[in-house]
Structures are given as C-alpha cells and as structure tokens.
C-alpha cells in the first residue's frame, strides 16, 4: 500500500509514538445524550444516544441522508445541535470561541473531500496545527510530521502541493494532519467515498492500523469490509435515528432489526 521505503509500521507503540492518543481514564471518551438537530423542517438527528469508550472503534453505517455525517460533524461542533449534550472526555462542548477551538484540537477529523489546505505543501499542512495551535517548535513539528507522513506512506510527497497528489495520497496526508494534533478521538466522515476504487484500500489500511493501535475512532463509511475487520461496535442509522447498535459479527450475520436487514440485503447481494 505504500510508496515509501519500509512501509508504515502500524504495530509499534509506546510513549514516543507520534500518534499515541492522549491519556484518559476509564470513563467514556465521547458521550452523546438525547441530541436533536433540525435542518429547517427536516429532523436529521432524532434523540441520539451514543457512548464511545477509549480505544473503541465505532463504525456508523446506514442509508444516505440518515444523519450519519451530521452526527459525526456534531461531535466537534461543525454542526451545532438544537438540544441534548455531547461530552468529550467528560467535558461538554463549549458554544464558540477559544474554548471550542481548544477542544476541536483534541478531536481529529477526516473529511470525504480531504480538505487539505490547497495553498500549502503537504508538510505545511501537517505542521500548521502543531505550530499554531499546540505552539510546538518548527523543527520538532516537522520531524514529527515526517514520521507521520512516513507512517501513512507518503513521506516522499512532503514538499508537494495537495493538487499534485492522488486522492488516496491526499486522504492519507489528511489523516497525518489530524494525527499530528495527537487527538483523543478521530472522526472519519466517509473518508473513502470520494476515492477511485483502487485507492480505497490504501486509506483503509492506514485506518485499520490506527484502530489496531488503540486509537478511538468514529467512522462513517459504506465500506462493510472495514466495518467487519476493524469495528468494535456497529451503529446503524436511518431516518435520523440509531436503529441498531451491535457487534460487527452479530450485525452482519444476524441483524436484530428489520430496517438493518433490509439495508444489508440491498448492499450485500452483489
């Protein structure tokens, strides 16, 4: 999957590890309680409750327009919610301003359309947050960034601009940019949906590696293979509601709800 020497070593860990998640206790890392959200008349999130423990990988699947992305984006308040509470590491999401920015720094976000800063090199994309938000030194940040880029297999692209990279490479760079902030939790909003089919796996491999290392992840995706392989918990969302929460094995072989069975029968037949 990689075009750098040696390839990413996704099994190593330890205190020096650049993507070691910030330590937290036994309490749940993300708690979503009774969250509601409307887009005008449309009730997109209906009384959502969800708990994510440290190290847990939650995959959110379901039909388009079911509220998956909105939930994902609500967790770092890119979408404000109407009511309910969202706790991150025990703290409620602040409304706006500096406090919110600080909290967002602890939550990595990977977008469907990568959203790399178009006027900055890959290396500058990855070091911007550590330098400007974490107030880390430039040299230290660049060293860390190169390690991360090496891990996701694009160290040799560090000095190029986003538009010069393939979609898969851009998405891996975007993952490195998020990891550089040493987030407590990573949100993935359909990270492979905008990719050419042959580039999907290189991104999923990086994500699988992260999951294996113990990164807490919430992943909105249509990649059922990834859900089976990496998820601890599958959340099935439809029509703004969480219809079913299950283990991947149970969910894919023996879903409890009719709505989920119907969805699975449509996507797994071919």
């Amino acid at each position, binding site marked *: 999957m990689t075009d750098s020497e040696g390839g990413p070593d996704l099994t190593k860990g330890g205190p020096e590890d650049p993507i070691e998640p910030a330590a937290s206790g036994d309490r749940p890392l993300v708690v979503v309680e009774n969250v509601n959200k409307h887009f005008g008349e449309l009730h997109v999130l209906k009384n959502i409750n969800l708990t994510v423990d440290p190290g847990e990988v939650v995959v959110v699947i379901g039909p388009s327009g079911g509220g998956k992305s909105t939930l994902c984006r609500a967790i770092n308040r890119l979408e404000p919610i109407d009511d309910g509470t969202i706790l991150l590491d025990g703290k409620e999401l602040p409304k706006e301003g500096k406090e919110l920015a600080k909290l967002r720094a602890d*939550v990595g*976000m990977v977008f469907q359309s990568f*959203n790399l800063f178009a006027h900055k090199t890959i290396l500058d994309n990855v070091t911007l*947050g550590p330098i400007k938000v974490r107030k880390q030194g430039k040299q230290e940040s660049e060293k860390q960034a190169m390690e991360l880029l090496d891990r996701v297999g694009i160290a040799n692209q560090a000095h190029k601009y986003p538009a010069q990279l393939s979609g898969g490479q851009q998405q891996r760079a975007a993952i490195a940019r998020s990891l550089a902030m040493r987030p407590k939790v990573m949100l993935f909003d359909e990270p492979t949906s905008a990719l050419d089919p042959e580039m999907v796996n290189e991104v999923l491999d990086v994500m699988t590696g992260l999951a294996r290392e113990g990164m807490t992840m919430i992943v909105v995706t249509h990649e059922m293979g990834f859900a089976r392989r990496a998820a601890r918990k599958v959340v099935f969302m439809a029509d703004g509601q969480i219809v079913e929460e299950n283990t991947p094995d149970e969910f894919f072989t023996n879903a409890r709800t009719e709505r989920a069975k119907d969805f699975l029968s449509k996507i797994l037949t071919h």
Partner: protein
Amino acid sequence: MFDFGPFFDNIGEILDGFWATIRLAAAAAVLSLIIGTILASFRVSPVPVLRAFGTSYVNIVRNTPLTLVLLMCSLGLNDILALKFSDNSSTTYYWWAVLGLSAYTGAFVCETLRAGINTVPLGQAEAARSIGLTFFQSLRMIILPQAFRSIIAPMGSVLIAMIKNTTVAAAASYAEVALVTKTIVDKPSFASGVIPLFLGVAVGFLILTLPTGYFFGWLAKRMAVAR
C-alpha cells in the same frame, strides 16, 4: 491645434504632477488594501456588531461620490474642524487625499475580497477549525491567502480605477497632475495646445495603468491555487 510644443514647454511641472500622483496612488494602494481587508474580515466574522459595521461602512462609502468624500476631508475635517497632519499645508492635504481615497477605495477592495472569500471551498474553513484554529487564525492563515490569490486580477481593476481617481484629489487641494494641468491651462501665457496637453497627460496615465494591469494579470497566473 496639434502642436505639442506647449506640452513640452511645461513638461517639468507635468512630471512633478505625475510624481505627486504616484505618491498618492502608492500610499492609497497600501492603505486601501489594509482597510479593505479589515472590512472584509468584519463582514464575514461571526460577531454581529462587526458584521453590521462592515456592511454599513461599505454601503455608505461606496455610494458616496468620491469628490464629496475628498471635499469632506479637506474642507470639513481639515479646514473647519482643523484636524491637521502637519503645519505644512501641502503635507496635510497629501495625507487627507491619501486617507479619503483609501477610505473610498477600501470599500471596493472589501467587496472584491469578499467575492474571493466565496471562492474558497467551505471545507477549507472546516478543516482549519477542526485542527483547532480560531476564527481569525483560520481567516488569516487559510481563507484570506487563498481568497487573495483568486482575486488578483479583479483587484488590479480596483487599483487601476483608484489610480485614475487620484485626479479627483484636485478637489481636495492636492496638487496632483490634474490640478497641475488645470493650472497650466489657466496661465495667461498659455495660448493654445489644450488638446495636446490633455493627450500627453492621458498617455502619462496609460504609462502608469497599463503596466499595473499587466503586472496583476501576470501575478494572477503565477499565484493561482491549484485545486
């Protein structure tokens, strides 16, 4: 009628006038870009008071004739209210002209820049916020640099308009080239050759504005953001 003799007889004064025009245009270019950027930041900010201020400023200043803005500066603020930049009257008129012209051009810079901000995909701002940058950090580091690059060519037009608008500063008693030209024509010794004189001054403006246009065109190509 097309004898350029009188033009060249007065070439020294005309060149002095152009030098005054260039000094005014250069200072106003810098100041109007600063004012315009601040106004644009206000107009896209999440703070309602700043947004309201930016919107009112643009709507009032953009819709006021420049002559009126400059007369207000020189006659109103300088002469009546006695707000002076220096004891030297030509220095003080220079700065009032710079200030009036920049305040006026800033409104146009703001609107051009705001159009540029709209060309930056929303995802860029979301990504900036998601790594923990504050609103003004993401505006300064992510949005504005990309917005500026997308509006270099139209910004060239704003600046060319501003260079030509320097002639209105004559109304504010600032002795730039238009006022100098008028003074030459009004001299009792000046008998004929008004048309060559005007043509000469017009060519002088072309020499200032054409390279400006080409420079901004070149810069726009060079700085374009690939997406």
